[in-house]
C-alpha cells in the first residue's frame, strides 16, 4: 500500500522533470513554451466553463429536489451488498453517457460527502479509469457512417465495468 502512495506522490514530479529535461536536451526555450502552452489551458477552461455551469445547475436541481437520493436509495440494497457506495450509483450510470454531466455529479459528491470520504475517493479513482462510452461511440462511428458496430459496445462496457470493479476492490483495500 505504501507503493501506491509513493506512486501517487511521484508521478507528477517525474513527468515534469522528464519533460523539462527532454526540453533542455533539445535546446527548447522551455519557459517560453510553458507560457504559450499555459495560454491554451485558459482557452480550454473557458470553453468548459459554460458547459460546467449548465450541468452543475442541472445536477444542483436534481440534488435539491431529492431525485439523486431517490435513485441512490432505490438501488442501495443491491449496491451495499457488494460494498458499492450508494451515493456513487447515479454517477456510475451517468459516466457512460456524458463526461460533463458526470463531472457535475462528481463535484456534487465532493461537496456533500467530501473528496476524502470513501465515496469521494472511490468516485475519483473510478472517474480516472472509465470513459464516456455512448457519446464517443456515436461521434466516431457517425463520422464514417458506420451503422453496424458489432461487438464494440459490449467491449467498451466490459472494459468500463472492469474499471469500476477494480476501483471498488482497490479503494476498499486502501481506505476500507
Amino acid at each position, binding site marked *: 500500500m505504501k*507503493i501506491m502512495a509513493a506512486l501517487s506522490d511521484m508521478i507528477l514530479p517525474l513527468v515534469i522533470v522528464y519533460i523539462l529535461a527532454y526540453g533542455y536536451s533539445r535546446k527548447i526555450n522551455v519557459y517560453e513554451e510553458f507560457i504559450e502552452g499555459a495560454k491554451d489551458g485558459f482557452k480550454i477552461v473557458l470553453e468548459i466553463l459554460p458547459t460546467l455551469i449548465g450541468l452543475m445547475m442541472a445536477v444542483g436541481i436534481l*440534488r435539491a429536489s431529492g431525485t439523486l437520493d431517490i435513485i441512490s436509495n432505490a438501488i442501495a440494497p443491491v449496491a451495499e451488498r457488494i460494498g458499492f457506495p450508494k451515493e456513487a450509483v447515479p454517477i456510475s450510470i451517468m459516466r457512460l453517457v456524458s463526461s460533463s454531466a458526470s463531472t457535475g455529479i462528481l463535484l456534487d459528491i465532493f461537496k456533500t460527502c467530501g473528496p476524502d470520504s470513501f465515496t469521494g475517493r472511490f468516485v475519483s479513482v473510478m472517474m480516472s479509469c472509465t470513459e464516456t462510452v455512448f457519446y464517443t461511440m456515436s461521434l466516431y462511428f457517425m463520422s464514417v457512417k458506420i451503422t453496424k458496430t458489432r461487438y464494440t459496445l459490449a467491449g467498451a462496457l466490459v472494459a468500463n465495468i472492469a474499471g469500476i470493479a477494480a476501483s471498488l476492490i482497490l479503494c476498499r483495500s486502501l481506505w476500507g
Partner: protein
Amino acid sequence: MLNYLWGAMIFIGILIAAFTGRLADVTNGAVSSAKEAVAVSITMLGVMSMWTGIMRIGERAGVMAAMTKRLRPFLKWLFPDVPEGHRAMDHIAANVIANFLGLGWAATPAGLMAMEELQSLNKHKDRASRAMCMFMIFNMSSLQLVSINIIAYRTQYNSANPSEIIGPGIITTLVSTAAAIAFGKLMEAIE
C-alpha cells in the same frame, strides 16, 4: 444526446421537487450550483494551464514523436489488419498518446482521422472492421495516465491530499485497458 439529457435532468428534478415540496430548495440549488461552477473553473484554470504548459514543452521537444516510435510494435500487434506504414497507424498512435497524456482536445481530431483511414481499409462500408472495433474499445477503456482535472476538482473541495488517487487511477486504468484488449482479441478469435 446532451440536448435531451440536460432538459430531462431539469424537468425531472423540478417535477419531483414540486411533489416533495422542495421548490424553494431547487431555486437555491440551481443558483448556487451555477455560482460554484465558476469557483471550480478558477481552480481548474490554474491546474489545467500548468498541465498544458508542461505538455507544450513536451510537444515542442518531440516527446510525443519519440513515444509514437516506441508504441509502434505494440500497435502492430493490436491492429494486425492495418498494413505497415499506413497512415491509419499514425493517427491511432497520436490519438493513443494524446489520451495517455490527458490531452483530450488533441485526442479527438486524431481519433476521427484514424477512423477515416480505417474506413478506407474497410471492405463493408456500413459495418465496423475488426481494427475499428479494437480501436474503439481500446480508446473507450480510458488510457489516461493522470487525471489532472480530477486532481484540480479535489483541490477545489479542500482534499488533504488531492493527488493520492493517481496511483490507484493508474492501476485501475491498466485493468480496464487489459480487459478491453482481452475482449477485443477474444472476439477476433471467435469470429
